[in-house]
């Protein structure tokens, strides 16, 4: 399926089989990927970590999947998406959905855009196989194919 409303996912925004020490490290890796793609500056990773520190591991929205994000702000240059898969799954402290195998980092240029992007993402992950497919993806092209986005 083609999800044209989602931003492109350049190679810089995909990190496969990353080794993360803990949830914070995993989120920071996804933040570096977002910054590398040009969607955000480095400070957005700090904002994403802070969201989880403040509100808990609620971003683990489905078994194995963390949807890391923060509010739109000066750190966001444009809509952006990054995918990090973890070589070894990492616990986030979520009561039902730990451990995390895939971190999807999301940045929206505005709150309205952010809501549109999560709606598109919901369409992808309502297919319950999507997390496992992403976790097992061997190439960035494979990841783009699962998400239905371009480079």
């Amino acid at each position, binding site marked *: 399926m083609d999800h044209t409303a989602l931003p492109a996912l350049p190679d810089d925004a995909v990190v496969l089989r990353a080794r993360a020490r803990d949830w914070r490290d995993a989120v920071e890796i996804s933040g570096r990927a977002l910054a590398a793609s040009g969607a955000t500056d480095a400070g957005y990773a700090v904002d994403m970590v802070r969201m989880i520190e403040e509100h808990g591991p609620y971003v683990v929205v489905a078994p194995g999947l963390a949807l890391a994000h*923060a509010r739109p702000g000066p750190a966001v240059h444009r809509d952006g998406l990054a995918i990090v898969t973890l070589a070894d799954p990492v616990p986030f402290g979520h009561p039902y959905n730990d451990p995390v195998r895939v971190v999807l980092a999301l940045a929206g240029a505005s709150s309205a855009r952010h809501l549109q992007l999560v709606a598109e993402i919901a369409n992808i992950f309502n297919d319950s196989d999507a997390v496992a497919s992403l976790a097992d993806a061997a190439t960035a092209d494979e990841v783009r194919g699962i998400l239905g986005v371009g480079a």
Partner: protein
Amino acid sequence: MKILTLCGAGIGTSGILKVNAERVLQRLGVDARVVAIDASMLESELDDAQVILTGPEFVDAIGQTFADVIVVENYFDTAELQRKLEVALG
């Protein structure tokens, strides 16, 4: 009917709950307005809400309410959402 979806920023996971709740409500033939909010908007939005959909972390933030609070485990599992909404809407 008004249904709230609650999360940390009101733009992320509550947005997922909103689209999936709208999908389920349409399937159930229930006419409802679904509003995605963060905790700071609770006070102003809570009054006329009948159902609140959220994750386990936010239940304490809601406090006393007449609304049915539904704790969602898998935000992408519309079957779970439908089951829990059907119970709440009786």
